[in-house]
């Protein structure tokens, strides 16, 4: 039999545009699978010349699911470049905004994007294997999921004035204080939504029991891990230093964001617009690391909120305390983080400074460059700006969350393809599993390529000479 190439285009239930090509060898087994990220917009070029204080309003347009991440990372980079430290109440409000975002983004991903594969099954009919199918199969659960996302979005709305692309953070602080009524309003949704998150965790855990075999062979491989941590290595999503650990969990580095260039380098492949970040000292690809929920929970050693920490301990004990390598456990880790974020919301709302109107410092001490970092839902987000003495951006470098996971996603695609595509017949469910390998990472591909891209889904089976043997279309 001749060699063949399968193309999956587009990958759905992810943010952004991706294409998967799978090369089969003569025996019909998978030789190699590639994840092509087919987007490029060019924020790193066209923001040149804009004012530093405009960046928190331009960069959120990189992504409509996590605009708050860019808004805040940009504001922090702006703080650094303009040499101004926000007053404590402003930092608390920014973090509150961020926690709202974690809740809505993670919540949406589990129940509405990645979830349908788990809740309805990988092999379910594609016509219903989505949020609409969920509404029909389990309206009560779907409503809870919608309410969870709504609560997160409403936190963003209440704190900043808008759900998507808010005008809120400025260098030196924020422009809107929180009043008591709004604080109480947010608090009123806490208990119900913590319940929903716990329900999600229960659903996953029972699914995990039934599907243990799959979990243990579905894209399981060692990598390094990276994320922000508190001074004593607790999970941190807003402040802190960047920590990198190796595949056994041992610390490789712990550094402030401004030093990221010393430790992180990016590799370019000819077949993807998404670059491949890696730990410089170990080279590429030995130095690749994963970020996002799985990465962060392997990098941290504890969680400083009680409910999340309890679940975290259970999670980390699954494989004898070693870092969790199973791609499908991204979903589990994601839910634990959602719990943490909800508990953080409570802590922030209880802080006496959260209602303060001391929310802006104006005394600036401009620097030639500055770096801002935050843990976006999908991973470590770095904004690095260089500015002239007029406060205009002369150049910028962005390393966006999902980008750090590029190698891992490619490897996951390759691994899942090789594990599940074994025979001459290729089923839709098998292809869906390959997509699910990408989906588990909750990639934000518009973000990570700060880019463009789009792909429809067609599977072309071609021989080595490029002749079309078979075409599988998914309701296309």
């Amino acid at each position, binding site marked *: 039999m001749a060699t063949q190439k399968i193309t999956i285009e587009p990958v759905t239930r992810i943010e952004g545009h991706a294409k998967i090509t799978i090369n089969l060898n003569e025996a019909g087994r998978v030789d190699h699978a590639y994840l092509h990220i087919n987007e490029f917009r060019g924020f790193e070029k066209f923001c040149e010349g804009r004012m530093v*204080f405009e960046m928190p*309003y331009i960069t959120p*347009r990189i992504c409509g699911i996590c605009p708050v991440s860019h808004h805040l990372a940009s504001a922090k980079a702006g703080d650094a470049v303009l040499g101004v430290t926000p007053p404590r109440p402003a930092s608390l409000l920014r973090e509150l905004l961020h926690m709202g975002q974690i809740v809505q983004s993670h919540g949406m991903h589990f129940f509405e994007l990645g979830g349908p594969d788990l809740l309805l099954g990988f092999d379910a009919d594609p016509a219903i294997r989505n949020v609409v199918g969920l509404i029909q199969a389990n309206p009560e659960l779907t409503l809870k999921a919608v309410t969870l996302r709504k609560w997160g979005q409403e936190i963003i709305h209440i704190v900043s004035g808008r759900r998507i*692309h808010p005008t809120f953070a*400025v260098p030196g602080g924020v*422009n809107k*204080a929180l009043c008591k009524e709004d604080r109480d309003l947010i608090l009123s949704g806490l208990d119900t939504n913590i319940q929903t998150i716990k329900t999600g965790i229960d659903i996953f855990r029972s699914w995990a029991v039934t599907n243990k075999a799959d979990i243990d062979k579905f894209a399981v491989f060692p990598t390094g891990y990276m994320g922000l941590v508190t001074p004593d290595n607790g999970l941190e999503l807003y402040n802190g230093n960047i920590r990198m650990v190796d595949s056994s969990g041992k610390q490789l580095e712990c550094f402030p964001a401004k030093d990221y260039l010393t430790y992180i380098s990016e590799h370019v492949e000819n077949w993807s617009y998404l670059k491949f970040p890696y730990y410089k000292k170990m080279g590429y690809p030995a130095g690749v690391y994963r970020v996002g929920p799985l990465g962060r929970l392997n990098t941290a050693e504890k969680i400083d909120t009680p409910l999340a920490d309890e679940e975290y301990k259970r999670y980390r004990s699954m494989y004898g305390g070693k870092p969790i390598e199973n791609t499908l456990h991204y979903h589990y880790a994601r839910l634990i983080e959602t719990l943490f974020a909800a508990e953080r919301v409570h802590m922030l709302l209880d802080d006496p400074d959260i209602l303060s109107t001391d929310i802006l410092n*104006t005394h600036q001490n401009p620097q030639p460059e500055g770096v801002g970092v935050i843990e976006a839902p999908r991973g470590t987000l770095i904004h690095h700006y260089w500015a002239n003495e007029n406060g205009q951006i002369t150049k910028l470098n962005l390393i966006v969350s999902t980008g750090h996971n590029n190698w891992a996603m490619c490897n996951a695609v390759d691994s899942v393809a090789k594990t599940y595509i074994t025979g001459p017949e290729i089923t839709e469910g098998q292809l869906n599993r390959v997509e699910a390998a990408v989906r588990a990472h909750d990639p934000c591909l518009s973000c990570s390529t700060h880019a463009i891209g789009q792909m429809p889904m067609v599977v072309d089976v071609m021989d080595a000479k490029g002749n079309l043997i078979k075409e599988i279309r998914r309701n296309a």
Partner: protein
Amino acid sequence: MLNITIDGKQIEIAEGTTVLIAARAAGIEIPTLCDHPQLTPYGGCRLCLVEVDGMRTLQPSCTLPVMDNMVVRTDTEKTRDARKFILNMLFSERNHFCPYCQVSGGDCELQNAAYHEGMTHWLLQPNWKPYPVDASHPYLILEHNRCILCRRCVRACGELVGNFTLGFEDRGANSTLVADLGIPLGESSCIGCGTCVQVCPTGALIERWSAYQGRETEVEHHKTICVGCSLGCGIDVLTRDNRLTRIEGDWDAPVNSGVICEVGRFHPMGEDRERILTPLVRKNGSLKAATWDEALTIVAEQFKGKKGKASGFISTRLPIEALDIFHQIFKGLGANVTSLEEGMATKSSSQLAEEIKSPYEARMDSLTKADCVFVLGEDITKDHQVISFFVKRIIPNGCKVITLDSAANGLDNFAAISLKAKEGTETEVVNTLTTALKTDKADLSDISKLACINTDMLKTAIQILKSSKKIMVICGQTKVKKGSSGLLKAAYGMAKQIGAALIDVKGGANSLAASQYHLDEPINVEGTEFCFLALGDERPSQQLIKKFEKVTFLVVQSSYVSPLTANAQVVLPVQTWLEQEGTYLNSEGRLQKATSALQSADGVRSSLDVLTGLAEKSGIKINTNWKTRLTERVSPVTIE
């Protein structure tokens, strides 16, 4: 009066009125962009096009004068189509990115015009030629991509401020707003008043400090009085969550009609001194927090029995009510009682008023008809900038400006003649000019030698003064510290001689009021054992700080930490000018009420409350009839 019909409504309107204004009188708002009520009509944007019976093409209503029996239609299919087309062309000409613009979402007149026409998209896309962002200026950003070439800023810079920095170069699609002859704004003759930003309809001109601080719908407005100088311009203070976001000129204010300078608009935005939030009392060598009761009791105790050895000083940034109570407490009890200005900007004018026993100054509006302005004794472009705007902006009407100064003066570039006199000789120069104007036969060689001014220059100045019909003399006193006293008297003499109006600019916000209370002596703390310094939010100069270094018991009533508070025995925290309310007497004699725009923190009190509390603790009877006491002394201006 003419009769016209607009949209079926018949109205009577004065000849010379434009159709736009006539429509407004009839309650009809015609959409505009380049038009502005404070600026001369331009007719550039063409958004205000209307149908006029008998006229073949649509007419711009902002520049079209009404004609008798005119029939106008403002809202027809033709005018709506025209407006949509014009807006489409405007959007296609440059690069308008609404998503992240600072004025997007309600504060952009261009966007609002598009909404008004129901535009959901552009019929013409831009060709994406990039335009520059000029960020060279410390206060302003000039974003050329958003400019709609309406020239409001050019007109404002010329007509309202008289600086003429902004202009246009090139033509057609290449027309570009430029500063001076096309140099970065930060290197140009721009004086940073920000009037251009206030009139810009889009986000083309942006203030750095107030960017993204809040839209119209998110801020509160507080109309009050600027305390930057004696002019007392009316301002609109915008706040959000009890935080200052922006200061604008109040278009309705009688003193300035909306124009303000950088001192009023931008200096307060850069305020970053540390606030004092609780009374402090020195115990065992260091300042410790105390209650108001404790602090005031200590002060009153110290003050008792120090008659003749106590001194009191007050800032002219404080309202009259505070000045008055201060005066009631300290008059007769203090050895040295005066304002921090030490009368330097008002002593001469007050003494002159007492001498001639009546007010003698004119009001600023005399300037509008002046054909010659003689400015001496101060560089008004520094500390009384808006007065310099009033002078500069009438120059295009044919008004000639003469300056008399011993150093470079900000008006030199605008003056017809700049007389540079040797320091200390200004009074003689003025007197000589007066004589020359009187007799026609003055010998100028002596004064020329003394003052080092070319006789030809002096002759030209005399010539100008002689041939002018309505002359205004604007005099200041701050440049005469070095001993050329009598300058004001000389100016008065000249004004009287030639029938000119005279204005003395005076000093700080309540400069004149302080003088009315005789708080215009020099500071001399020698021999005083107790000193009360009502500093308010004033920033003390090094000289001032030095003066109080050796005082044994210093009480400072102040908003901010400074070397003075660091050395004090008692510190009493007070409101800043934005937090307090009170009355101010401007240099023309207008009594204006300032209202509070921000709420002060709990431990902070108003200066008035502190002084009232001090009086109570000291057993001094006071009353609040400040108006009577204010007008006891003859004033150089009519106070009302």
